[in-house]
């Protein structure tokens, strides 16, 4: 064996060693093991591939789009069915739907990622802290959660737009604000189930601070459920943005935000189904991809190593 292969196998052995010498080795080893679990799951990998593809399409939209997304001819190219020229047909302003989908993927990805990044951590923290601490902390946090949950979502969204003005960015914030409470309740429910478990007791006996227990031990166990919920939410988030668009709170025309495209296609559903179906299918693909990805992440992240 030459030194190179020895080095290669050496790395893998080092990562997969049963008796790690340092914390860093253990952590890296866990990440590597997680990656291998993930990679073995073909569906999860395909989800990842689709997501990466989407990101690429979003980045290269100007190059890939055959027609300009904001211009159309009312008389000549209005409401054309899918054809070899217009792959997904044209909309009510005569614009090519495929091109609009490509440009819209940027907005859509931005919306779901931002909302996920904003809402999930908030929900996770609030839920685990409430579940673990109990007592009046739990009561207060849960009442706050209740207040947010109990709000008809429209009211909050409208208030936000009133304060910040219309536009897709403010719509994102409004959606995030209404999205975190369910995550909090789920995290809390899981926390309640496991807080009296033995391993928690043992860490408590070792003198770990409550904050450490929550972040290092309880949260990782709740993360998987929250991730599943978040990935399932992707579609819902995009459609909520569409719903806000009905009230004039979302993307401003002529932005090709997918939700707005669906809302606009509403009038034409019976005779020109492709106007709403194309962005609808796109949303489905995105949520499927994130869903597969999320499941794969869940399995990989699960410290109990589900088999």
């Amino acid at each position, binding site marked *: 064996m030459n030194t190179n292969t020895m080095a290669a196998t050496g790395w893998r052995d080092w990562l997969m060693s049963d008796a790690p010498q340092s914390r860093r080795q253990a952590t890296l080893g866990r990440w590597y093991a997680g990656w291998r679990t993930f990679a073995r799951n073909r569906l999860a990998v395909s989800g990842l591939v689709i997501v990466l593809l989407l990101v690429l399409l979003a980045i290269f939209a100007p190059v890939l789009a055959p027609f300009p997304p904001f211009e159309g001819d009312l*008389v000549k190219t209005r409401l054309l069915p899918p054809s070899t020229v217009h792959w997904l047909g044209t909309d009510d302003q005569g614009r090519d739907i495929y091109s609009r989908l490509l440009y819209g993927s940027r907005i859509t990805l931005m919306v779901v990622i931002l909302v996920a990044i904003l809402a999930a951590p908030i929900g996770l923290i609030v839920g685990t802290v409430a579940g673990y601490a109990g007592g009046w902390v739990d009561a207060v946090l849960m009442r706050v959660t209740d207040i947010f949950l109990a709000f008809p979502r429209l009211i909050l969204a409208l208030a936000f737009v009133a304060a910040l003005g219309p536009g897709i960015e403010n719509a994102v914030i409004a959606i995030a604000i209404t999205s975190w409470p369910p995550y909090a309740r789920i995290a809390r429910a899981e926390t309640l189930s496991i807080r009296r478990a033995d391993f928690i007791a043992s860490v408590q006996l070792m003198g770990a601070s409550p904050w450490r227990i929550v972040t290092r031990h309880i949260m990782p166990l709740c993360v998987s459920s929250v991730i599943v919920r978040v990935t399932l939410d992707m579609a819902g988030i995009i459609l909520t943005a569409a719903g806000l668009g009905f009230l*004039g709170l979302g993307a401003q025309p002529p932005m090709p935000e997918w939700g707005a495209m669906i809302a606009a296609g509403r009038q034409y559903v019976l005779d020109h189904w492709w106007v709403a179906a194309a962005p609808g299918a796109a949303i489905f693909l995105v949520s499927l991809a994130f869903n597969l990805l999320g499941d794969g992440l869940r399995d990989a992240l699960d410290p109990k190593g589900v088999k």
Partner: protein
Amino acid sequence: MRILQRPSLRLSLVCALSLAMLATMAPAQAATPKDTLVVVTAMDDIVTLDPAESFEISAGEIMGNAYDRLVRYDVADPSKLLPDVAKSWTVSADGKTITFEIKDGLKFASGNPLTAEDVAFSLQRAVILGKTPAFILTQFGLNKANVAEKVRASGKTVVFEIDKSYAPTLVLNCLTANVASIVDKKLLMSKEQNGDMGYAWLKTNYAGSGPMKIREWRANEIVTLEKNDSYWGAKSKVNRVIYRHVKEAATQRLLLEKGDADIARNLTPQDLDAVASNKDIKRTSTSKGYVIYLSLNQKHPALSKPEVREAMKYLLDYSAIGQTLIKNIGTIHQNFLPVGLLGASTDNPYKLDVERAKQLLAKAGYPNGFKVTIDMRTVQPYQGITESFQQTAKRAGIEIEIIPGDGKQTLAKYRARTHDIYIGQWGADYWDPHTNADTFARNPNNADDAKDKPLAWRNSWDIPEMTKKSDTAMFERDAAKRRVMYQDIQADFRKTSPFIVVHQINEVAAFRSNLEELKLGPTSDATYMYKVNKR
């Protein structure tokens, strides 16, 4: 309890139950009752049933079927006036007094007799309550203090005194409006609270004498009209008319195609094209007294330049819009008087001409265009027209940013004059040219705190000369001369106004082919459902 924990069993139970229920009912009968007309329409704008307060379009139609008035106009020829509750009328020589003789033997639906006293009371009540549509009467010099004296009953006649000698057709046409409906004085006074003349009660009740009476109004759900057996004229051909609130056009269409609705009122151009080939469905349409327009706020530095105003008028693709976005539901029209009103002009000089617009813009000092915003309601056809305008204006360098909003939001901004461009509609309140001239071509006071806020004011368009012309036309008693005056105003308006009038609205109703005599009126209160016959 345990057995229900077996989900497979639970599942089968649910399935069994559903199937059982489905089995018990017959397939839905796809026909409406023989003696009932079912109309599906979007009518979430109804706020009150009191004719002295009501002004929304949906309610207008209901008032037109349920309440009588002194006079009505002939739907076939709107310039002709027909007696309703009044047997005849005479106008004094100076034009300041009209005397109406009331028919004998009329009754309200409640059984109370309809007398001149009720007529006078109704008109006085509208003025005293002073709600939104009261201006139609108060513009003739009537107010809370003097109305009891100026509008009075004496025996079988009603005397109507006005402050100036307005064109009699103007005054009479105003008396055809819903605000001049005849209400049951005895009934209302019996329901009075705190001297409100029955206002609180009539908001959700009925006190009229028309061919149909209002049985029920469930907000955003249903309005039911029933045949009034004590109506003094030709009785209604159907026993009931039920208006169902169905907001979604596609849903209306499905109901109509299936026969679960007789008349659908809000079908889109696409829907109308699609049902054209259906043997069971016919269509009828009428030009309404409504126009859709874009308006440019004169407070904006660029928009206030006359060349810019003119340039913008060349940047709308009228013909494309006419062929597609408003097909069947509108006709391109570039004047503020809708066709059908006395003096309306059908001169439509503007076409899409980007080159000309660019030249005009350069002359005004904006060779590279400028940025501007437009407040738009996220409703068709406003959205379609706005998006199209955005594209065509861009070719001349004008970047339009669309600010979407819902109806009330955009309206508030408009009334506060904080918009740049606004797209909206305006319609006739009564069938006389003054109704639109009053708002488009009159601006008595352009100050921020003005009492009146006509559309011209909302766009800060200061027009002392045109205001004078509009005022003069109000008093011209010779119809031919009056027509010329309005033609003249419209010619000036087309050239200089900050209004880009886009089209006149066509109201279209699609209905089952077993209906006869359905005709839509030019104003909402002239669509007479009681004349419809169901074979």
